[in-house]
């Protein structure tokens, strides 16, 4: 069971209070009717699935209820950081630097 820091509650809490919500920073097209079938497929289905730092979403379901973003190393399952929805993508280099 992972330990996850909720950026809204400012507390580090057991995974049992959270649900995973897939890869982060995949924005829904402003006007879907204007995008090609391929672009729509990418939005719906194509995922990075990296071995290493992964930008992903979690929701503090049994808590403040907010969706938020996280960077987690999928090899160690360690969180490098978590941040509020809407905040910019943190820079990986500095993060992994910090992680060392």
């Amino acid at each position, binding site marked *: 069971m992972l330990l996850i820091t909720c950026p809204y509650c400012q507390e580090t809490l057991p995974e049992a209070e959270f649900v995973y919500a897939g890869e982060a920073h995949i924005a829904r097209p402003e006007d879907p009717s204007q*995008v090609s079938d391929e672009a*729509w497929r990418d939005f719906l289905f194509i995922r990075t699935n990296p071995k290493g730092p992964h930008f992903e979403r979690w929701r503090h379901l049994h808590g403040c209820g907010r969706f938020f973003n996280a960077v987690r190393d999928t090899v160690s399952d360690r969180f490098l950081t978590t941040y509020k929805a809407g905040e910019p993508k943190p820079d990986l280099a500095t993060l992994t630097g910090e992680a060392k």
Partner: protein
Amino acid sequence: MSAFRVHGKGRVNHGRKVGFRFDGTPFEGLEGDTVASALLAHGVHLMGRSFKYHRPRGPVTAGSEEPNALIETRRGIDRSEGRVEPNTRATMAELREGLEAVSQNRWPSLGFDVGAVNDGFHKLLPAGFYYKTFMWPKSFWDKVYEPFIRAAAGLGRSPDAPDPDSYASRYLHTDVLVVGGGPAGLAAARAAAEAGLRVTLVDESSEIGGSLLSEPDVVIDGTPAWDWLAGEVAALAALGVKLMPRTTAIGYYHQNMIGLVERVTDHLAEPDPALPRERLWRVRARQVVLAQGALEKPLIFDGNDRPGVMLAGSAQTYLNRYGVRVGQTAVVVTSHDSAWSAAFDLAAVGTSIAAIVDTRAELREDLLGRAHALGIEVLRGHTVTGTAGRLRVSAITVNPVQSGAVGAGRNIACDCVLMSGGWTPTLHLFSHTQGKLEWDEEGKTFLPFETREDCQIAGAGRGLWGIEAALADGSAMGARAAEALGARVLARSHAVERDRTGSGVAKKELPTLKDLTSTRAFVDFQNDVTAKDLRLAVREGMRSIEHVKRYTTNGMATDQGKMSNINGLIIAADALGKPAPQVGLTTFRPPYTPTSFGALCGYHRGDHFDLTRKTPIDPWAEAQGAVFEPVGQWRRARYFPKPGEDMDTAVARECLTTRSAVGMFDASTLGKIEIVGPDAAAFLERMYTNPWSKLAPDRCRYGLLLGEDGFIRDDGVIARLAQDRFHVTTTTGGAARVLAMMEDYLQTEWPHLKVWLTSVTEQWATIALNGPKARALLEPFVEGLDLTPEAFPHMANGTCTVAGFPARLWRVSFTGELGFEINVPARHGRELWEILWQAGQAHGVCAYGTETMHVLRAEKGYIIVGQDTDGTVTPQDAGLGWAIGKAKPDFVGKRSLSRPDMLVESRKQLVGLLTEDHSKLEEGAQIVLDPSQPIPMKMVGHVTSSYHSQALGRPIALALVEGGFGRMGDLVHVPMEDRTLAARITGTVFLDPAGDRLKM
């Protein structure tokens, strides 16, 4: 009678006798004994049979790593009482009055076991033999060979009665968790506790103390070991340390979460029934100190598995902790100094030590001196080439080795052999953390190197030998853990006298005169894996220890390689001519020792296995004798049988009553979401396919929700209560999914919308009244709302009081009849139901359940999401194109509806089906166009719903059929096992297509 008990010795209570039985024979042991120590006290070594060759076996250890002495333990004589554990380690099973112990994997008896014939054929059954044969004739595998193999396999027998005991679980948060209650663990706990931290100390044994329990002669800070131990344990308790004996750390999970299993009642003769048998602890520790000590390794020589052959350290434990001599005449065989002290201890209580056989040529002077003083013959630079004895070792053959050459052998009579191949750190939990190991070439063992977890390793667990070193290191690691948590503390050291430090060498199988392929030198005792099996695997091309392990099953027995992994690795590396690290170590996987299913289930058994949600009206339905069905986590009344009615007759009556008079239905399980805020309508526009902005505040509308993939996810009636307030209903099973999906879009895609979502599913109890007399029944109770058709037409909603209860009243129908849904605060649900029920008697009211609801809605062609749709159905497929707001630029799933495959003619579309011969179709039955085609047939769809319609006096069905809309009136065929049914494709509305009944 217990000839091998040494009076006054050990930590057992010589004043308290405990009766138990082994294979039906009564025995007496002492309080504090294990089954193994109690049997050994009676001179009984033979306790089990090995897996493959059924060789007679006795305990080789005194701990949880025991591979041989596995027994079935029972509470009560009879298996049918349900308290039966197969494969219990006799070396860990604490004695309790009346314990029944039964040997396993033998027939007819432990002494004479027919299965032992395998041993005679061992040359035919090398590692992996089954991959090479049993292939001809083909049909024999299922019928002959496999049944034979399966019958031979397995050790104990599964319990055959339900388990009457209960199990428990807890969460525990602690600053420092110390695993292992030996000297290192005690010192670590002391240091951390003195730093003022929350400390928990666990040990798998019945007593805290670890190796100290077997070392009474050691003196610590001038105090005898056991007195010091008692004082230390008291001090820890006083410092508030949580001391947990009988507790095994089974696994080390992410971020310092450790699983513990506490054995609560197995050692008690008559436990309090309110106590759980075992308790699972899910511990989250800020720092972990692993002080699990080290495991002694067997030496690998021909016949090293005979009962009476055991680890020297274990013999020492049986003597010093349990007061039991493991034999009359012992030969000690070792490559490590530690075994010498076992010899000296046993000699001191009158066991004659026939010889100390050391593989090493160079030996410590002090040891030689002590042996000489005790008159013990020492054979240095010797090997062992065989043992004799059938059910117990009776002699051992030792030979000198000069410059690699094995000299002539000599037999020494004995009734026990104490062996030691040195020690290897217990790395299991460390390796669960995926920590890196480093190979210590000199010690021929792996040592912990580094881990990502916040974890320290102390004492023998990192290769430090001796109690003084363990105490000092434990204290230092406890202090390090404390410092990591920002606490200050000084590590202390202790002066230890008569400490038994020592060193040794690690060996592959011992040299012998026989050629290696004919010796039976066991590496994995339980699985009967010998050194030659390992070499065969390498010869056959197995290059990694992972392959060797899987091919030979070395290390896969119930001790999970505690006895065999390192020896196996050393031999495989030798066979490959590679350094051990390049051959690799099979990773240790949780749990550390086998863990009962019950402990893992904890409270989640029987009724508590999963939630059962019930509505406020459920107790009434139960009192009425309703038959229920689970829907998601809810239980719903399925039908209300009157005496003598089965489902069909009850449902027929409920349908008829509802269509002709009025029916009451508990719709409280429907998901309800209150959507409030200035942008409420705008939000619904984006989520649902339908338009919402223009919906009047006193109206309802059917809402259809798609996934972004364009397929139907959910539906339900949505009432607009005010300009900025909607009351949304969802399917019973979909409530949580739908709310989560809405929150996702609101929070992450459209955060600028000023609207909030709240689940009110359980705020409201919902009673649906359906039928021509619904208004007549309801009207007298309603205040504040005019129910006349003009004032309150179909799809109207309003607030009022019903029988004095505040209510949200809707005029909606899922039956095609005049219908009302009354939402009242949950606390009033049952009272209102009973009021209406009473009043309804005059109108011939009935209560109906989900089954009747399904029939009535099917007669109207109303779909049920999840039954008539299956996650691959678009609105158009379901004939719900009308529910799509044509003018809307976008809504969830809209874009996917224009993907190529969504537009093809041949999509499956929802239609009605009427069988030609009026027989009822089976739900799920497949539809074909040409019934005479051969198998595999081309299927064009399937029946999604099928019922007998009381209203139409015939069966009706809904089906998804390829291009169904274009096949109206066509005949299709439904091939069943016995016959093929013909059915005609129709529209989906079977009753009152004009909807007049709704408008009454």
